[in-house]
Every structure is written in C-alpha cells, then in structure tokens.
C-alpha cells in the first residue's frame, strides 16, 4: 500500500547502515493509518521547524494522576488519524526482565488498541506505548492489570517508576539486590506513584556498584549506589597472571587478546587516591584511602572483587537542567546496610519528602531546593549528621559555620551587651 504522505526529508534518515525509526514506522504505517499521519506530521515539523503537538491534557485512567500523557496534534485537519495520540507509560519489571509471552501479549493489546509503536524503554525506564485515543485508555489499562499483572508507571508531579541495574541477577559486582529494592520502593509508594502531590517529579534509581550502570548519580533525585566498607578482595595469584599475560585485561573490553597488563600504568597510576602499590609480586591496597571508584576491579576482574560487607551509599539531588543547570547527586548517607525491610531507608525518605513538600516551590526539584535553602537545612530536616565524606574537596571552602548546639559547651550571645562594649 502506498503511503499517503510524501516525506522526502524524513527519508534521508533511512539512509546509512544504522537502524532508522523512519524505516520502522513506515513498516507499521502499511497497516496503521496513524503511523502514516505521524510521518506526515513530522515531515511538516521539519519543514516548518516547529512542533505540532499540544502539551498535556486531562485524559487518564480512573483514580490515577499519572501514567497517561494527553497528546493532541494541532493540525487535525491535515492529520486526522493523530488528532489524539496519547502516550501511556507502563511500569517495567525490575531490571527489565520479561518472559516472551508477556511481550507478545503486550504487542497484541497494543496492536489492537493503539498505534502498534512502542518505545523499549523510555528514558524514564518505562515501556512507552506511543499513541492511542481516549476511548481506549481504560480498556488497555484493564487488560494490562488483569491479564498481564502490569501497572501504569509514573508521570507528572509524582514518584516516577523506579529503575535499577541488572544487579545480582547477572552481575558479579553487585553489592545490592537491586530488583528487590526497586520492587520494594514501587509497592510501598503506590500512592506517591499514582496520585501526584509533590512539587514536581521524583526519581529513585538503584545501581548495584559504583560503576552505576543506570547513571543513578546523574538522573535520580535519590540515587542508591552499592558499595562495601571492608576491603577489596585480592587474589594475588590472578594479579600475577594478569601481569604475566595469561589473562585478558579489562574483561575483554579493550580487545579480546591476552596481553601482559602494565599494572603500574594501567592500574596503580590511575587509582584516583593513589592508594595502591605493586612490588613486582604482590599488590597492596590501603583500603582506608580507597574511594570505591571500581577502576582497578574493572581492569582485573579475575583478581579483584568488591568486599563482602556490602551496602549502599545514598545520594540526593541530581537532575537535568530546567530551572537550574544540571546537577549530580550529593552523598547524604555514606553507608547503609540496605537489607529488607529497608526501614532505615524509608524513614529517611519520609523525612526527605516531608521537607520537600513543605518547602519546595512548584516545579522545584529536591536538588534545587537544597541549592536554594542549603545542605545544612536539608541535613537538619532529615536528622543526618554532617560527615566529611559529604564534602567533595575538604578545606576548599574556608567558611565554616557552627551552631552553638553542635559545639561542646555551646555559647550564648547578647547583642545588646555587645553594643554597649562596641560602638557601631
């Protein structure tokens, strides 16, 4: 079937050896008129250099404030099949494990009731169902929940669908049960996920180790990153095997060949805190100075492993630029055991949310609020004691303020008496 709209500019994007979303959508457009219109609409946007989507709406499923994002095109006269083209977010299973029959069923539902286009996965982590009409929303929701045991994810001013790395399911470095933590947060905070009442979005992301494969430190208002507080486990025999050229360094990530590892240049000299030493036979690590950057472990995975006393570092406040510039999360709790039922963690979350809901301005992320009112206020509100490990560069900033309460003996000050002794 010939497509209705000519799309010369989009067609440029079909050239080259890489996958093309234009090719993909054209294939679906053979059977789905909305996909034909979506290409036509996009071609028009390329021509006009303007978007043709209106922003937002009231549509949703009953009782949920999130999970559906109303989308209407502003040229329904030209593209009637995408006059309504709502997005649905589906909460993906922790670490994105699926059975193929679930995926097939999901495709069946969406082929029948939507555009047939998916996004696996959106940058939120959810499965994104791209494009349906208002009258299909409840029916899709019913089938998702009743036939697949799946739920809608977060959107708007609520807790967003939490996300985690593959963790212990496949990765030997994981210091956390990332699936369990994601599941626990999802189930415990159903109200926060579905009924928006925050100043703005709030994201949790969980990485099993400091390699941080879900980029929790850059993308989550609360980043949970696995770490250990004992020593890196060393197999000296295997270290010598790397140096002797018997093993493939970097797990094969920079070439599959065996070669002698230049341990001094590739490991020791690159340790950010210079806490390692190699005497030609044995590797020594001063673990008290190790900042758990993972570099040495990444280079010599057969020889080095994270310690056994594992837990998480809790960081807060990262975000992409909107009101303020991009920000990374800051360490708030350097180490927490992070074992079920995670009470210590949830107690912290409760205090953090109370403070943000109380003081946050509309559309102000937690990180921006901390920037505005100060880390001191945040630590006070969450009952966390300041710790040198929260400071990026100790002694960089000489302005240190003390509270009388924080200093043994404290002090009191009488401004009136002061003025009697000192003229203004």
């Amino acid at each position, binding site marked *: 079937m010939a497509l209705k709209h000519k799309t010369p500019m989009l067609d440029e994007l079909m050239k080259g050896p890489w996958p093309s979303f234009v090719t993909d959508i054209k294939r679906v457009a053979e059977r789905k008129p909305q996909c034909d219109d979506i290409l036509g609409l996009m071609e028009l946007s390329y021509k006009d250099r303007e978007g043709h989507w*209106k*922003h*937002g*709406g*009231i*549509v*949703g499923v009953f*009782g949920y*404030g*999130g999970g*559906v*994002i*109303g989308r*209407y095109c*502003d040229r*329904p006269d030209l593209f009637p099949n995408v*006059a*309504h083209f709502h*997005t649905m977010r589906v909460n993906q299973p922790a670490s994105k494990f699926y059975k193929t029959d679930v995926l097939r069923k999901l495709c069946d539902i969406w082929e029948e009731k939507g555009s047939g286009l998916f996004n696996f996965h959106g940058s939120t982590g959810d499965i994104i169902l791209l494009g349906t009409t*208002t009258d299909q929303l409840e029916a899709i929701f019913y089938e998702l929940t009743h036939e697949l045991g799946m739920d809608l994810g977060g*959107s*708007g*001013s*609520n807790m967003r669908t939490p996300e985690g790395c593959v963790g212990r399911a496949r990765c030997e470095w994981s210091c956390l049960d990332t699936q369990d933590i994601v599941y626990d947060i999802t189930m415990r905070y159903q*109200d926060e996920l579905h*009924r*928006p*009442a*925050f*100043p*703005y*979005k709030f994201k949790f992301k969980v990485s099993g180790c400091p390699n941080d494969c879900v980029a929790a430190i850059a993308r989550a208002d609360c980043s949970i990153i696995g770490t250990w507080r004992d020593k890196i486990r060393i197999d000296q025999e295997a270290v010598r095997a790397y140096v002797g050229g018997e093993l493939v360094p970097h797990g094969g990530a920079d070439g599959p060949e065996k070669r002698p590892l230049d341990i001094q240049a590739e490991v020791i000299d690159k340790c950010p805190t210079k806490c390692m030493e190699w005497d030609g036979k044995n590797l020594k690590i001063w673990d008290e100075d190790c900042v758990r950057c993972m570099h040495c472990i990444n280079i010599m995975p057969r020889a080095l492993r994270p310690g056994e006393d594992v837990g998480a570092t809790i960081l807060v406040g990262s975000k992409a630029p909107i009101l303020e510039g991009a920000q990374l999360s800051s360490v708030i709790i350097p180490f927490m055991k992070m074992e079920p039922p995670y009470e210590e963690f949830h107690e912290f979350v409760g205090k953090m949310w*109370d403070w943000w*809901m*109380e003081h*946050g*301005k*509309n*559309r102000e992320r937690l990180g921006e609020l901390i920037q505005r009112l100060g880390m001191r206020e945040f630590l006070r509100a969450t009952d966390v004691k300041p710790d040198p490990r929260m400071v990026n560069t100790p002694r960089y900033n000489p302005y240190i303020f003390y509270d009388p309460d924080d200093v043994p003996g404290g002090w009191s000050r009488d401004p009136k008496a002061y003025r009697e002794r000192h003229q203004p």
Partner: protein
Amino acid sequence: MSSKEEAKERIINWMKEQKKSKHYFNDICKAVPEINMREAKKLINELVSEGRLRYWTSGSTTMYMLPGVDDVEKEEKGMV
C-alpha cells in the same frame, strides 16, 4: 458536616474563587492552611475519586482543576 467534609468544601470554594482554572497541589493547600500536606493530599485524593476535582498533566507536571461535564469532549475538539 464533619470537619473533613468542611475542609473539602473549602478547597472546592477556593478553586471556584480563582481566576485561573488549573492549580498546583501546593497552592490548593493554601485553602486549608491548618492541615498538613500529607493530610491535605488525602482530602484532595478523595475529591478526585468523587469526581469533584480532576487532574491535568503536561506529562512532567500535574495540576488540578474543577471538572466540567464535557471536559474530555472539549479537549478533544481543541476547545480548551
């Protein structure tokens, strides 16, 4: 009327008095200043379940508005 129903009533009245139709959660809470936010959230959720308030969302933010009988129809026809 229970104090809870009275507070819900005050929220609805506050919404009616405003010039704009869409409001942030934070601002609606000002209608019931003596109630903390977690409790206010429960009231607002109830109002949504009862169909007396409805959500509007851009996808990134959420706002609340009073429902009209033909809201969805109007939105679909591009009248709002």
